[in-house]
């Protein structure tokens, strides 16, 4: 087992495009860390640099304390699971599983023992003589996992291994991967663009955007305390709503002005944003999780009027797209202060089923305990 360390790693392609910018990240020994981000954010490149499939432009990658920048892929003792599985099409499942062991010149008896043990562990015994093309997507995925596990590698690298599976199978294999990783205790760097996968699998999750690390934290913290508006919008489905507000002071206490309402901030919000006291008069972005919005009575204090724009009913919950008088900002805005993009709708997730139609008007209440506040440059208020 080994830790994986990115120490100020950068990657610039020959055409001058910076894919990874000064990445500093540690995957602890035995940890499953998920690297998540939108398409093109550089997450796969980061993984491939660890694997030795891409050269590093600057910085160091260390495996178990040893710098591996110049060590070719075949000598790094890492195992990788590819997005399209990359099973050797001309070899049977058995030969696929044997391949990494043969390359290491293990004795025949040991190869046979290991392959059979892995096949049993992953329920592949009956499929050992089949070719990959005769397997279903889920079975191929398990063979790819098996080929990674069979060698006792120092670490696993997984490049979107579930993205070719249908939704149901994805959930099943996701659980299998998590169980297997815990059982084997192998350091794992897992790349995905799917934040649900990241949140359910990762012991810690690292969010990447345009080659820059945005935040590394356990899933719960990433959800509760996003470091900036990008993370706030990316993590959670749907992502956090961002509204413009202003800090005010009333009787010496900080008060948040949101549209017509003045919200007295609860103790929890104040503790999580210690820098807030010093910002009276300042504009802020207020992050509200869709789950923190509920229906309110017309007469309730601090209720906000809204008009239903669209309704998505998922059975166990209903997602409402709402038009309000509040100024909202898109979480991927590069300069929220100057953003002139059309304001995105406010999204609310209500438990259960509701019979709203587009055009209906309603009153909203907000659970302000879970508010997250950001300055106008998009970073969380410290």
């Amino acid at each position, binding site marked *: 087992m080994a830790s994986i360390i990115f120490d100020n790693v950068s990657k610039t392609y020959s055409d001058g495009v910076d894919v990874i910018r000064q990445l500093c990240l540690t995957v602890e020994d035995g940890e499953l860390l998920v690297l998540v981000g939108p398409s093109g954010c550089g997450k796969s490149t980061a993984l491939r640099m660890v694997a*030795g*499939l891409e050269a590093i432009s600057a910085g160091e990658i260390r495996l178990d304390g040893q710098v591996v920048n110049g060590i070719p892929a075949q*000598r790094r003792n890492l*195992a*990788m699971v590819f997005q*399209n599985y*990359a099973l050797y099409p001309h070899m049977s499942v058995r030969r696929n599983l044997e*391949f990494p062991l043969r390359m290491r010149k293990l004795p025949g008896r040991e190869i046979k023992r290991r392959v059979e043990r892995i096949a049993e562990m992953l329920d592949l015994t009956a499929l050992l003589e089949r070719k990959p093309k005769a397997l279903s997507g889920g079975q191929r995925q398990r063979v790819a996992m098996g080929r990674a596990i069979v060698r006792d590698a120092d670490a696993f690298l997984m490049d979107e291994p579930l993205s070719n599976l249908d939704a149901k199978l994805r959930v099943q294999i996701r659980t299998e991967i998590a169980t297997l990783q815990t059982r084997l205790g192998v350091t794992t760097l897992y790349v995905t663009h799917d934040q649900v996968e990241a949140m359910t699998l990762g012991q810690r999750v690292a969010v990447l955007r345009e080659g820059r690390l945005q935040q590394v934290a356990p899933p719960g913290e990433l959800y509760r305390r996003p470091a900036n508006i990008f993370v706030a919008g990316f993590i959670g489905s749907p992502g956090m709503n961002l509204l413009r507000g202003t800090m005010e002071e009333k009787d010496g206490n900080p008060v948040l002005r949101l549209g017509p309402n003045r919200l007295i901030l609860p103790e929890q919000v104040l503790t999580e944003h210690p820098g807030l006291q010093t910002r009276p008069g300042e504009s802020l972005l207020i992050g509200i999780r869709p789950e923190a919005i509920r229906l309110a009575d017309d007469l309730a204090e601090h209720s906000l009027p809204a008009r239903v724009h669209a309704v998505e009913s998922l059975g166990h919950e209903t997602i409402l797209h709402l038009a309000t008088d509040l100024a909202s900002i898109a979480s991927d805005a590069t300069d929220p202060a100057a953003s002139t993009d059309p304001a995105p709708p406010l999204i609310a997730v209500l438990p259960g089923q509701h019979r709203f139609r587009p055009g209906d008007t309603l009153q909203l209440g907000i659970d302000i305990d879970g508010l997250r506040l950001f300055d106008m440059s998009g970073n969380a208020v410290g």
Partner: protein
Amino acid sequence: MKSTTRALTQLLLYSALTLLALLFLAPLMIMLIGSLKADARVLVEAGTLSAFLPAEASLQNYADVFRRSDFLRFFLNSVFITGAIVTSGLLVNSLAAYAFARLQWRGRDLLFNLVLALMILPFEAIAVPLFYGVSMLGLRDTYLAQILPFIANAFSIYLFYSFFIGLPKAFEEAARIDGAGTLRIFFTIILPNSKPVFASVAILSFLTWWGSYLWPLMVTIGPSVRPLPVAIAGFFTLPPLLWGDILAFGTMMVAPVLVVFIMFQRWFVRGVAASAIKG
């Protein structure tokens, strides 16, 4: 109305294709049937429909070919020379193409363009300098002179390259991570997944070198290392000029080509199509 037009178009199309096929088949038929006729009748019947009718067929011409020349010797020479060019060509050209398609090295693109440029150079343009080179090396009248210059081949490299560039990189990357080096990857992963292109390159180079005439004529002196195309020419230059014998010789010379082509046709078509689409 529409279906009638369609049927008519189909009929016309198939008729045209059948005619074309017959046109290509005719010389082969004339050769095969002529080879079974007495020498005197071959030329007399050549311009008539009788050219396609094997009246009084006999194998006398075949026996004459073996009596008048050392056919077996020429045949084995051709098999050896062509076989050596094809097999070593498959190895050398596929490895070169793999290096162009997948490995990173300085000057790769420039060199690849130069190799591509070689494709437009006709052999006749380099025949004389090549002849000097072979003479200086003392290789005249040897098998080596007929094999060595043709192992590396720009067109073969191009066909391999077009195929390799279309193979998913993930297989190679997986193998690399599994611990395989470049050569191992080539032989255990790339090669088994490239059968169609190996088959088409093999057939194309077999056809080219089996029928090669000019160069063997230049570098061979005696019959010991001569291949079939040069040997058949001997039947024209030395009297008596017997057309039945020539056609029998030709039939025996063409037969292996047809056998090879029919055996590997499936691979050949797939390989050429794949190269064409991906290239």
